[in-house]
C-alpha cells in the first residue's frame, strides 16, 4: 500500500510571519501529502521532537527573521543526535545566496527555496528527494 508523504511545516524562532508557511502547507496538502503544521515560534528542540514523534519524511522550515544561520544548523545537529538523519530538510524564506550555499554544503539542508519559488518546484523536489520511499519493517 502506498503511504502518503508526511511533512512537518514549522517556523523556527521568533518571527511571526506565517503566511508563507500556510501557503506551502496548503500546497503540500493539495499535492496529496499529510502536513503536520505546528505553528509559530518553535524552538529547534520542539521542531525535532515533533518531527520524530510524527515520523515525517520531510521537515519544511520557513524563516524570515534572519536567524537562519543559528537556528537551522541547530535543528540539523539535534536531528542527527536523535537518529533523525533520514529526514529530508528543506527551508524557505529570506536567505542570502551565500548563506544558502553554506546551509546546503556544511549543514545538510537539502534545498533552500527563496521568494518566488513555485509551489510545484517545492512539491516535486520533496517527492524526488525523500529518503524513505516505502514503509520498512
Amino acid at each position, binding site marked *: *500500500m502506498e*503511504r*502518503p508523504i*508526511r511533512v512537518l511545516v514549522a517556523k523556527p524562532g521568533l518571527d511571526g510571519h506565517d503566511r508563507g508557511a500556510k501557503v506551502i*502547507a*496548503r500546497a*503540500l*496538502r*493539495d*499535492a*496529496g*501529502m*499529510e*502536513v*503536520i*503544521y*505546528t*505553528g509559530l515560534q518553535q524552538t529547534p*528542540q*520542539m521542531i525535532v*521532537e*515533533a518531527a*520524530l*514523534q*510524527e*515520523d515525517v519524511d520531510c521537515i519544511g522550515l520557513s524563516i524570515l527573521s534572519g536567524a537562519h544561520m543559528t537556528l537551522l544548523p541547530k535543528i540539523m545537529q539535534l536531528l542527527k543526535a*536523535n*537518529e*533523525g538523519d533520514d529526514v529530508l530538510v528543506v527551508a524557505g524564506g529570506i536567505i542570502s545566496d551565500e548563506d544558502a550555499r553554506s546551509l546546503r554544503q556544511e549543514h545538510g539542508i537539502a534545498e533552500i527555496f527563496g521568494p518566488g519559488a513555485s509551489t510545484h518546484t517545492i512539491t516535486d523536489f520533496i517527492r524526488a528527494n525523500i529518503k524513505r520511499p516505502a*514503509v*520498512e*519493517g
Partner: protein
Amino acid sequence: MELVEKALAGNRRALSRLITVVEAGDATARQALAALYPHTGRAHIVGVTGAPGTGKSTLVNQLALHWRAQGRTVAVLAVDPTSPFSGGAILGDRIRMQALGGDPGCYIRSMASRGSLGGLARSTGDAVKVLDAAGFEIVIVETVGAGQAEVEITREAHTVIVVEIPGMGDDIQAIKAGILEIADVFVVNKADREGAERTLRQLQMMLHLGAGEPRDGWDPPIVQTVANTGKNIPEVAAAVERHLAHLKANDLLAPRERQRIEREWTMIVRESLLNELFARIPASERDTLIARMQARQVDPYAAASQVVAAVFEDSI
C-alpha cells in the same frame, strides 16, 4: 520483530516508526500487531469528540498536562480529516499542544483520516494498540471534528468525552440521536461565553428525558470548562476517572472489551473475505457486468448474487 522490541523497550523513534507501519495496514503491519497484541489491554483509552472549533485539542492539552502533573504517562492520538480530492491533509492539532513538548512521559501523534468516515482513521485502533503496548497509562484519542453521526470512537474508547459549546443549536438538537448519546462525560467548553447556562440546561434536560435508568447505570456528568485558561480541568479528569472506576466496580469493562473485540474481528473477517472475493473476479468479467448494469440489462443485486455464487462454486 526488532522494531516492536525496541518500541516496547521505550525507544521513541521505534515507536513512531511502528505507528507508521500499522497505519499502512499491510502484511508488515499485521506481523507487528501480532507481536504487540499480548502487551495490550492495560491503558485507559479516553475519546474526545465534538464539532470543529469546540476546543477539543485545547481540552486534550489541558487534560494531558493535568495527568502528567500527577505522574501518569499520557499518549495523544489526534485525527484530522484527509482531503477527498488530493488525499492530502493538514494536521493542526499539535498547535494547541505546545505545552506538552519536551516531556518524555508524553507522546503526541497526528493521524489523517485517510478516507474513513466515522471520525477516526481505519487504523486508529491499531495505533492505540501500539501506544497501549508501549506502556502509556492513558491514551487520549481526539476525533475529527464531528457533527452528529461520527460515533466510531465508542468502539475504541473506554470513556468518551463529548465537547459542546454555547450557542450550537436548540433543544431539538439535544434530543436527536447520535453523538450526544455516546457521551460518558459532557464538557460545555468556552463556558465564559454567553449561553453556557442554557446549553447546560438543554443537556440536563436531554439526559433526564430518557425513560428508565441511564445506560450502564452511569449518569453522564456535565462539566463547564474554559479550556484556554484551564478552568475546571481537574473536574473533567476526575469525572473521567470516576467513569473508569464505575466500569470496573460494576464488571462492565470485560463485557465492553468483549463487544469491541467481536466487532473488530468481524470487521477484519469481512474485509479479508471481500479482498479475497474481489481478487477472484476477473477484471473483464467485472467490466462486462458493470456495462450490463449501466445498460439496465441486469440490476445490481442480481449482478452481485451472480458473482458471489460463482466464487463460492469455484471454491467448493
